[in-house]
């Protein structure tokens, strides 16, 4: 493999990896706080992408604005779902498994609603970037990819700052680690859960816009990336923010590099096999490996 090829693949893998990371973070935060595996996360990604491209059809906006639109609407949608549906089920004291299955139902509902609203045809994202490729050394890289990496990393950094330095963020961390004690400290769990879903939605919606700009937006676009992101999150260790980020990027890189050596038809299998092997060695994911000393 030549140096330029390596760089091009690396950038490509990093870009898709950032997208997976954003989605994975959503999964991780929700599962950390509530134990719920949010099957509808992929549809939140789809909604972000759809709202983004719809916004562009209404007003010609720069890419950053579309990203913000996707993030905001992704967040709002997620909060609406949590407050409207999941919380209702929790109030009825249904077991956790039922809530997880309800997210599957929500996924079906949202996907098909998306199809009704936006049609079955994929919608292309506008050409928002300079058509000239950037040059990194001998390699030529689509500017889109660089933007995705930059914006993706920026969002992740902002998330970390939010969690570490704001009251709400710290409350979320506390609630995730020990909900009973958090409640005793006066933290309103209902509000925190809503925020958690909201942030998951913001991240997912943003990922949707980035993903859409890379390929296209369609009602079924979120499903497979979400499964992969979830696998990535598990790889990194469910419940670990750092694990989700690392897992997503790692997964993206492995997938991209594997595609050239293994036949593209088995590309998806690479991640799955890797996941199973890692889980066998470290049942709690890579994070378990790093924390082994304690």
């Amino acid at each position, binding site marked *: 493999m030549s140096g330029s090829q390596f760089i091009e693949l690396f950038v490509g893998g990093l870009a898709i990896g950032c997208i997976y990371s954003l989605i994975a973070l959503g999964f991780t935060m929700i*599962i*950390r706080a*509530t*134990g719920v*595996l949010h099957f509808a996360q992929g549809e939140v990604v789809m909604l972000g992408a759809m709202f983004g491209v719809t916004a562009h059809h209404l007003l010609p906006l720069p890419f950053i604005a579309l990203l913000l639109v996707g993030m905001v609407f992704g967040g709002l949608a997620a909060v609406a779902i949590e407050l409207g*549906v999941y919380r*209702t*089920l929790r109030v*009825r*004291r*249904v*077991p*956790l*498994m*039922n*809530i*997880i*299955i*309800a997210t*599957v*139902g*929500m*996924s*079906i*509902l*949202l*996907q*098909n*609603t998306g*199809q*009704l609203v936006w049609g079955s045809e994929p919608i292309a994202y506008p050409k928002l970037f300079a058509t000239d490729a950037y040059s990194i050394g001998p390699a030529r890289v689509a500017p889109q990819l660089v933007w995705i990496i930059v914006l993706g990393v920026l969002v992740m950094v902002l998330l970390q700052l939010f969690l570490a330095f704001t009251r709400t963020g710290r409350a979320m961390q506390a609630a995730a680690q020990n909900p009973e004690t958090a409640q005793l400290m006066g933290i309103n769990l209902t509000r925190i859960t809503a925020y958690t879903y909201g942030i998951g939605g913001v991240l997912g919606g943003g990922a949707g816009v980035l993903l859409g700009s890379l390929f296209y937006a369609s009602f079924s676009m979120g499903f497979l990336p979400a*499964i992969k992101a*979830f*696998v990535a999150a*598990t790889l990194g260790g*469910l*419940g670990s923010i750092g694990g989700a980020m690392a897992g997503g990027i790692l997964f993206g890189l492995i997938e991209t590099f594997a595609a050239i050596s293994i*036949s593209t*038809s*088995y590309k*998806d*299998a690479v*991640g*799955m*096999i890797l*996941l*199973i092997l890692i*889980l*066998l060695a470290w*049942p*709690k*994911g890579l994070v378990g490996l790093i924390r082994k000393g304690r």
Partner: protein
Amino acid sequence: MFKSEFPAAYLWTARIVVLAIFIVLPFVYPQKYVVHIVSLAMIFAIAALALQLLLGFTGLLSIGQAAFLGIGAYTSAILTTTYKLPFEIAFITAGLSAGIASLTLVPITRLRGVYLGVATLGFSIIVHLVFLNEEWLTGGSFGLLNIPSPSLGPWILKGETANYLTCLAVLVATFVTLHRLLPSRFGRALQAIMLDEDAARASGINVTYYKSQAFVVAAVITGFAGSLFAHHAHYLNPNDFTFWKSIEVLLMVAVGGIGSLAGAVVGAFVITLLPEYLRVLDEYRMVIFGAMLIAFMGLGHRGLAGLSAAVAIRLLRLRPQSDTASRPTSQADAVAAPRWSRP
């Protein structure tokens, strides 16, 4: 797994009545479409029962059952089309090959909760990719055609009704088998593992061995269902066995009621037949289906089976036999919840 609040006599009467209804159904409603779709529901009921053994009685979350459906289906199809072997042999081999394939999952059995679910999901994805890409074996996306009808000795069980009765026979056999397994030493070991692994170990139960056995038994049963599927549809396509199918089987068990054998059957019927009934709603069909799924989840872990039981108790004015009252207590639901606690 909740103890039945019904006296045995009621239960057996109900079962015999239901069985009688199923036997006469194809003669009362001989429309091909009806018989065809109910057969399909029965095939999935077999797969759902297998998952119930794993999930409802051993506490193992498997989101990979479609893999065994597919392995059973393709094995049976290939043996009867390419090798012209009789159906009986293909059927048995289908179950066995699914069981052998499940042995690859033995190392995974020590994973807990969501992690096990993800690993089995990954397995399902990998197997689906094999079906899709190994065209020399499975015909790939072109599919496998001209799969014959089931047969018993010299008689070819051609036609929807014969096929239906075959599926019904296997379903009844599966139900009876699991019904016998549960109160046995084997079944008790599984339930002990689900309720408290450490206490199970301390009582001398080799947890890894029994979890693996549960996987194999479930895979064999699902393999049989796969074989029936192949000979029912007469055509196989890898898209019949995506991981989404694995999720559907999980939905069947969840909707019907985790821990209830009858619930698995009910759930399979609901998930298979509901989208058909909803066809009248045209493009809103799946939206409504999704919404109904969410609504079903409000029924608690006893699902539809529990709901029907509660209704029946009211109608028949029975007082609960055991001390676990018919109303789902928060404790009962709470017992189910911690099993899927956060990672």
